[in-house]
């Protein structure tokens, strides 16, 4: 457990020393969302109708942008060779990096989401569902995206490959995440959607660190 804490602390320290990575994802999210009122016109009804979907898609793409670098630094500077030879499960280290990605990239996205929802004139009834769905859905993005990032290590144009690989797998998160907001706006209970998102998160947290660790080992050969 001390190794997990040390790995997490190292990632967070690196994120604080070099804040560009996380800031770039949030900037992308904000800019992409801001373009929609210009693109589809300032009609409030239309914007409010598409707000949940726009925010989810923008968050997903922003996370993809940052996931590309998740394992690349440690792969290129040789840290992964040493970590793979440390007497502890590599999945532990990989899991710490995924958690750090969620803390440094997804939490700022979750914080920015209600602000951007105001811009898109989302009905006040949808805010709780939106933020709750984001909080439950974004860890799945970090976990599944981490597997993709590990699989594309060593590949040229890995970022493109990562999106092709991972985005189809994250469609359920998108459907239930946006669905939760729609349900809330229609006056239905959002419990079902949130529980499905939670279930996807739990399944991903059980499988993804091991899959990503195996992919990293493969990349080191």
């Amino acid at each position, binding site marked *: 457990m*001390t*190794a997990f804490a*040390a*790995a997490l602390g*190292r990632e967070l*320290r*690196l994120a604080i*020393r*070099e804040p560009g990575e996380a800031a770039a994802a949030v900037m992308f999210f904000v800019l992409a969302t801001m373009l929609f009122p210009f693109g589809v016109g300032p009609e409030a009804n239309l914007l409010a109708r598409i707000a949940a979907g726009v925010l989810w898609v923008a968050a997903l793409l922003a996370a993809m942008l940052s996931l590309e670098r998740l394992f690349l*630094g440690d792969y*290129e*500077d*040789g*840290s992964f*060779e*040493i*970590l*793979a*030879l*440390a*007497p*502890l*499960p590599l999945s532990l*280290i990989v899991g710490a990096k995924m958690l750090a990605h969620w803390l440094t990239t997804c939490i700022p996205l979750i914080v920015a989401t209600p602000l951007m929802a105001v811009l898109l004139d989302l009905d006040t009834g949808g805010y709780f569902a939106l933020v709750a769905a984001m909080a439950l859905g974004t860890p799945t993005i970090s976990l599944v995206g981490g597997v993709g990032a590990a699989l594309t290590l060593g590949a040229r144009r890995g970022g493109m490959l990562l999106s092709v690989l991972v985005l189809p797998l994250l469609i359920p998160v998108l459907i239930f995440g946006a669905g939760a907001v729609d349900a809330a706006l229609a006056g239905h209970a959002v419990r079902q959607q949130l529980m499905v998102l939670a279930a996807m998160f739990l399944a991903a947290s059980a499988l993804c660190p091991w899959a990503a660790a195996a992919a990293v080992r493969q990349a*080191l*050969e």
Partner: protein
Amino acid sequence: MFPTGQPWNKSAGAVSRVGPANARFAVNRPDTHPAIRFSGRALACVRGDRAVFSGLDFALDAGEVLTLTGPNGSGKSSLLRTMAGLLPPVSGAIEWEGANIAEDREAHAARLHYVGHLDAVKLALTVAENLRFWSAVRPDGGDIQPALEQFGISALADLPARFLSAGQRRRLALARIAVSKAPLWLLDEPTVALDSEGIAAVHAAIRNHCAEGGSCVVSTNAPLDLPDAKGLDLVRHGMGAGGRA
């Protein structure tokens, strides 16, 4: 000393083929014939469809140094990575005290330190933060101060690694092997970029390690100041120089 339960054995055969004829050495019989501590049999390596070496054997005992020599591309780094377990051999097997290292990867990882070509240094972290992390991932990781002093970088402890020279970064990478104990060191050209003082520190560290009963495999292109070292020339096993296919 390392808790290996094996007596020192400096008299074991020189590095050569520990083929089937010598297979009794692979069995752990401490009374009559102490097992060769670390050995490989009939190893072959293929990189990118090209056979790098084949039919390679090595044997190493407690307190011994094995130096790997050979021209660029002869497979020194690949052999070290195979010994570390990063790269599974295409054929053959590597054994530690009679047990194949592929059977328990974590146990093998716990007994070795590997220093590759890459320094594994995070530029945004300070020297001390870098080293403290590598100490934390080993269960017996100790205080970093003696390791920093051993490689002459204690004055740089609070400096971000971004400002280190190539040689200082190399010293930091080498200090990693001094923060925790491991009976087997695998060093890939450890003296690259080092000045004479740094090279002397590496030699002293290796000699000290062996005096305590450790084993060490070093790949090198520069002559090492280690008179007792056994040598393994990879050109004899290479595909371009009449090695077995």
